């Protein structure tokens, strides 16, 4: 609150003039106020400055708002003029990227590094050759005769020529 100077208008008197709440024009108070303003350049100047400032504020705000509303209607959407240039958006995007990548980096560090197998360095042609060799080996194993321990027992009713006798073996 501005201190009251006896030679000048009080803050309330000045505000009442700005708020268009001056005393009634026919009252004696109104006459005294007008008399004071006519004689006091300080109060007149301050009042004029405040009026000008408030007027500039109102006119500029009104004009700006009008322009913004027209732009909004023309564009149909809010103008993203400076949005992409804001550093905070870039900072947020960077933070998100780091947050997304960091867990993978950690897990990657924690897993022991496996030695590079020779198979991974083999050329595709070599790989196919080795595959064929492996398949061939499997085929051979499948087509191989049944191992002797797994062969069925010899028929005891078979002829002795087929199964040599013990005596002939001794000989």
């Amino acid at each position, binding site marked *: *609150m501005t201190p009251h100077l006896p030679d000048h208008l009080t803050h309330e008197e000045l505000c009442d003039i700005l708020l268009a709440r001056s005393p009634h024009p026919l009252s004696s108070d109104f006459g005294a106020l007008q008399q004071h303003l006519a004689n006091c350049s300080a109060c007149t100047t301050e009042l004029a400055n405040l009026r000008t400032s408030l007027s500039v504020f109102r006119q500029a705000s009104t004009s700006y708002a009008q322009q913004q509303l027209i732009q909004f209607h023309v564009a149909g959407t*809010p103008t993203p003029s400076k949005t992409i240039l804001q550093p*905070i958006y870039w900072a947020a995007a960077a933070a998100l990227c780091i947050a997304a990548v960091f867990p993978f980096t950690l897990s990657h560090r924690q897993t022991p590094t496996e030695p590079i197998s020779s198979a991974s360095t083999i050329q595709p042609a070599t790989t196919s050759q080795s595959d064929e060799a492996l398949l061939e080996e499997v085929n051979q194993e499948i087509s191989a005769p049944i191992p002797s321990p797994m062969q069925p027992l010899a028929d005891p009713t078979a002829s002795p020529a087929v199964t040599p006798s013990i005596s002939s073996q001794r000989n």
Partner: protein
Amino acid sequence: MQPSNGDPVAATMPAQVISEVLTAADRAPATPFDDLASIVALYEQRIFRFLLISTRDNDIAQTLTQETFLRAWTSRTSFREDCSISTWLMRIALNLLRDHTRTQRFRFWKRASAAAVDVSDVSEHIPNRDSSPENHLIAKEQLAIIWDTVAQLSRRQRTIFILRFVEELDLAEIATTTGLPISTVKSHLYRALAIIRGRHNSSSKDTL
């Protein structure tokens, strides 16, 4: 399901519901808000301006302006015509603004928002009646003082200040809009003007 006439809402509503809604609309008393397009055309500028200067954010102001007219439409039957349409709309806008600015989310996005209005944006709209560069510079300084001071006011003081000095409502209209006594409105304006006078005086001393 009835064939719709291209209305996506109607396409998803059974015919019985549509007829009930239409009957209810027929029964509802006529309000000025029935012709919403005319209401928007008349008052959008004022509501948007008030919300823009209050929030200083284009996106929020646009969103709240649309929300204001949506609320007015949905609650149009409660408009008793005991105040003007402008006052009623302004009251809705004020309530929305209060609800919105209370949230922490608003405070965060106000700091971060790219749609925030800067005084330099507004100062480009200073009327250029006097082409003198010196006077234009003085006007820019005066605008900056008021702009900064308004930002420092309390929410209620700022609202009352904008309603008086931008929307040019008289004290009785401000009292009706805000629901405050006229004496309270006046004291808020006195305090706001005291701060502005203080800034003016210190600025004048600095330039001397």
